């Protein structure tokens, strides 16, 4: 970045602000584009799973469909329901998307590429993802609609419940990695696919993935929306851009969960076989810094999200609660104790 030195001198102390903003934009814009194409991928993949074609009219293979959708949503009128709490009605989508974006600050993309390499990174992500629920609750309450309110209450109960199982699954990762720093957690898994935390923490990995589905209100846990029961849940009264913002937040959270799963259980930017990073094609190392590995792992987790959606019917509400409280939390607790006990034996190496 030598060519930026004169700019840096000219801006003086403001430089830090400008440079950080530039980095944030460099994360946010690709993220939003990923969301756009994730929606297309979702429709295409589920289409093929159901022996349909999916969107194929806008652009070649429907590749411009997301932009058509965005344009449609931008030009739609925003309808404010009568008796709605106007102020909170518009603040709610912002409260949903703010935390979804902010959590990306601590996600390391490669060994060196991270916006904020903080010590308590994992806790920060956990704290921010727990704030996202405010957007949903307030949307439901401020809409002054029974369906929206029911959706909000369901979602609040569900997210608070699954956060506990999710937190306990992360405790297992902390025990294995001995750190809260996301970059160091990945570095603890060096050495190839056999060293990834997914093996010693397999039950926690499954619990984390399923809780991730529940946290992001994805099928089969999309109680907050549940078209067949409460129309569209918390965002039934939202239209146009306000709805688009909720949509964006949900998909960003999906990608975030995928990124965290890849970082904590699947070795993040590390290659499944370290030698692969030295492969050169036409003088370039395609896997050089490992970003492609992370992208591939995230894509795989996201594919699983879509796959689950196409496969399973929606849970009944009491079953969702039962699964969270009576199955996942005990499983994680038992595995944490087991992990702690094994670390005291001569097999401690297997559990790092």
């Amino acid at each position, binding site marked *: 970045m030598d060519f930026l030195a004169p700019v840096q001198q000219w801006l003086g102390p403001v430089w830090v602000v400008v440079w950080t903003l530039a980095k944030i934009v460099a994360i946010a814009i690709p993220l939003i584009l990923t969301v756009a194409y994730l929606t297309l991928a979702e429709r295409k993949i589920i289409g093929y799973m159901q022996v349909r074609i999916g969107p194929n009219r806008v652009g070649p293979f429907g590749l411009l469909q997301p932009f058509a959708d965005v344009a449609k949503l931008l030009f739609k009128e925003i309808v404010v329901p009568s008796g709605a709490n106007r102020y909170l009605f518009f603040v709610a989508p912002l409260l949903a998307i703010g935390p979804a974006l902010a959590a990306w600050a601590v996600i390391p993309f490669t060994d060196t590429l991270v916006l904020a390499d903080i*010590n308590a990174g994992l806790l920060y992500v956990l704290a921010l993802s727990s*704030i996202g629920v405010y957007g949903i609750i307030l949307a439901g309450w401020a809409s002054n609609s029974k369906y929206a*309110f029911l959706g909000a*209450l369901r979602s609040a109960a569900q997210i608070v419940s699954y956060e506990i199982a999710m937190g306990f699954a992360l405790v297992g990762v902390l025990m294995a990695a001995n750190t*809260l720093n996301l970059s160091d957690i990945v570095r603890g898994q060096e050495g190839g696919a056999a060293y990834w935390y997914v093996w010693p923490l397999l039950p926690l990995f499954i619990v984390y993935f399923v809780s991730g589905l529940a946290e992001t209100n994805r099928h089969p846990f999309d109680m907050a929306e549940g078209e067949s029961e409460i129309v569209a849940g918390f965002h039934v009264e939202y239209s146009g851009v306000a709805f688009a913002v909720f949509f964006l937040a949900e998909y960003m959270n999906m990608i975030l969960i995928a990124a965290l799963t890849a970082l904590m259980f699947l070795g993040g930017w590390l290659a499944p076989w370290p030698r692969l990073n030295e492969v050169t094609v036409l003088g370039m190392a395609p896997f050089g810094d490992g970003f492609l590995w992370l992208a591939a792992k995230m894509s795989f987790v996201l594919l699983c999200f879509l796959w689950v959606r196409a496969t399973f019917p929606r849970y009944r509400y009491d079953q969702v609660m039962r699964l969270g409280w009576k199955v996942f939390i005990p499983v994680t607790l038992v595995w944490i104790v087991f992990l702690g006990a094994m670390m005291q034996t001569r097999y401690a190496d297997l559990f790092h």
Partner: protein
Amino acid sequence: MTFHTAIFYAFAAILIFAALRVVTTRNPVHAALWLVLCFFTAAGVWLLLHAEFLAIALVLVYVGAVMVLFLFVVMMLDVNFDSLRKNFRSYIPVAATVGVLVLLEMALVVVGSRVGGGGAPPVPEGSNTKALGRLIYVDYVYPFEIAAVLLLVAIIAAIALTHRKRRESKYQDPGLQVKVRRQDRVRLLDLPTEKRD
């Protein structure tokens, strides 16, 4: 005034304003949201003190869980807050006493640390979480365990006090549901086809 102090005063101003709004706002949901803002800014102030673990735990526990349940209750219950608010001014003597007491206590701590030469506590080296974990799980492990057992007892007592089977509500036993076999539910009838005349 350094940048650091400027941020502190900004946070403090937001915190005090939000705290005032918690008690003065008319709408209970708004009050709960102002309280959320209070917790959030308090976490910001703690971050300035390099207490990152405590700050994030505050957000995680209070903002992420406690206040969500609070909002839940405030939204669900149809409390007539205007009637509760009628005697707002009559609470002034009690509030003033508590406020003065808190102020005195804080003054004692501040003055005490200045006089006693304690000053600000040193910032722990390296990871905050590790330092706290060492204190809780190594140095003070028994008091910590006792506190945990007390909490557990309190949880069990609270559940035992409030838990009762309500006769009018329906229950589903997942175990029984799983055990259901086809033979118990489905009966195949052999109906002869009728001929149309």
